[in-house]
């Protein structure tokens, strides 16, 4: 009996009641999601469940995977932030704002939704302004998961010149983003340090290699899938010959 009481007192004594909530820590939630959920099983698409269901499931997994309340709330915040309905039109995602936003757009008119901290906003913009210099070239990088936990950017390395645009294309249904990890010291990426989540298959995220970028190596990751190996890099080289995309898929705009 003494053993039981000792154990109970020990464990209840270290239980600090707290309801710390940091709903803005979605990035941390993405990392926690990868670190905890994939310990046992493949990552499921956030689109499989509603926001409310993810709350229930996350609480269920908290008990099973031994997570704190704060960690669980951040995972819920991440899942709900990227749990947008799939695009219903042939779409092009444009990184209007940095952070945890996502949107879909037709080639000429944006029609879709944007996820912000305050919820989902419907948007309708009459014209899309190209985000890349018309003189540059487009380098395509695929965001691949194939629903089988093969998380990668394809290709993993590319070389671009100033004025080019890198276009990341969502190849499957699990949302991905581009978060820079190591960049040249004099680069100033600002909001582009962490790009929006690209939600639906076929959506894209474009980044123009403009004055924010200097020559050098840029290492980036997909925030939630970095622990699963989804890392890549590109090199900006103003002296590269032939506009040169040594790897990647050149595409005419």
């Amino acid at each position, binding site marked *: *009996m003494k*053993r039981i009481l000792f154990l109970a007192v020990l464990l*209840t004594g270290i239980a600090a009641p707290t309801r710390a909530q940091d709903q803005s820590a979605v990035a941390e939630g993405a990392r926690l999601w990868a670190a905890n959920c994939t310990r046992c099983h493949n990552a499921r698409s956030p689109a499989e469940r509603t926001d409310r269901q993810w*709350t229930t499931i996350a*609480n269920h997994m*908290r*008990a099973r995977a031994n997570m*704190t309340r704060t960690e669980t709330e951040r995972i819920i915040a991440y899942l709900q932030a990227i749990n947008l309905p799939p695009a219903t039109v042939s779409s092009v995602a444009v990184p209007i704002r940095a952070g945890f936003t996502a949107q879909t757009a037709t080639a000429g008119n944006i029609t879709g939704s944007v996820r912000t901290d305050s919820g989902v906003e419907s948007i309708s913009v009459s014209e899309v302004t190209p985000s890349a210099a018309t003189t540059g070239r487009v380098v395509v990088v695929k965001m691949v998961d194939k629903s089988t936990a*093969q998380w990668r950017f394809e290709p993993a390395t590319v070389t671009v010149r100033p004025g080019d645009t890198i276009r990341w294309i969502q190849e499957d249904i699990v949302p991905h983003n581009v978060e820079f990890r190591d960049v040249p010291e004099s680069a100033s990426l600002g909001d582009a340090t962490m790009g929006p989540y690209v939600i639906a298959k076929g959506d894209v995220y474009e980044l123009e290699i403009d004055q924010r970028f200097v020559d050098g190596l840029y290492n980036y990751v997909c925030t939630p899938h970095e622990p699963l190996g989804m890392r890549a890099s590109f090199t900006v080289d103003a002296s590269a010959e032939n506009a040169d995309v040594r790897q990647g898929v050149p595409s005419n705009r």
Partner: protein
Amino acid sequence: MKHRAKHSALLLVVLTAAAMLAAPARAQNLGGPLSDVVISGYGNVTWQAADDADFTNDFTAGFSPVLLYSLGSDFMFESELEFGVSGEVTTTSLEYAQIDYLGFNNVVVTAGKFLVPFGLFGERYHPTWINKLPTAPGLYGHAHGGVAEGGAVLPVLSDVGLMVKYRKPLDSGWGVNLAAWATQGPRAVAAEGDDHTEEEEAHKLGGIAGDGHGESVLATEIPAVGFGVSFPDNNSNKMLGARLGLVKGPKFEIYAGGFHARYDDNEDLDVLGSHLSMDFRSNDYELRFEGVMLWQDVEHEAAIEVLRRKGYYAQASRRIRAWEPVLQWSHVLESDIDGSVASEEQREISVGLTYWLEASIPLKLSYHADLEGDNHVFVQWAYGF
């Protein structure tokens, strides 16, 4: 005995009260926007063939619905049923039915019937859409679809009681996980003379049979030990156990734990278990190890002797796009009582290949070579939803 029972009941009341008092003003969450019900679960169909003269091939199927209900942000009810059909036998079991209190930041308090966190396979890896092979490792018996086979050290443990889990995140992605539980515990199951069940006969001295989630039976001359709620408790002694783990993100986990209980009517006979579990994951690779040791007091020739049982398995797998080859070595070592062999060792190598149709739909093919007996081929199609 009644005195101990009162203390146990008092303990439950005190812990429940402590949990409630530590969470003031939570009532407004009840029925709030976070409340919801989720139906989840998994199922499988398995085909098995063997080079056994008494067995050619067979289909089995299993279905395990899971119901989750989140009552506000602090309370959670979760349960899982398991239905399995194999030949003429249909099995049903309640794998867990538990209430979780989630109001603490670092602690989850669970009451009810839950999967005992002894080892990792039983707590986390045994669902067929998660398990990389169609069967369970030898030390847990080939439990699948709710039906266990013999030769195991332990079944997947599910028991009724109280559990507390604690987590302390550390720097650089590391964390300490602690779990402790007090459950009804095992009980002695009287031998029935010559009227043994088919499973009991199959396992002989020191063997274990069970449904994989409740009872296990040490057959014939050795007193049987039953875990879980398939039997009424025969004494006031509770199983006490704990598990300590060190975790780094998805890459590395190591756990060590143990339990103690007395299982006979007079509370004279101890049963002790210990385990060590490790898991290492790289981008495409996973290496897993689990080892279990069990010590059980038995009355043998007018003296109390100790039956020792132990087993382990090591598993390696690699993801190659949608394919995942798996290699597992499973070894249940010879058990003994005071130097006398109680059961022979069992060694098995399993080679499997899984094709992931979707993230939760594996199609598995595996070959199991039992170095002391029969060989088996399994094909399993599982589905998690």
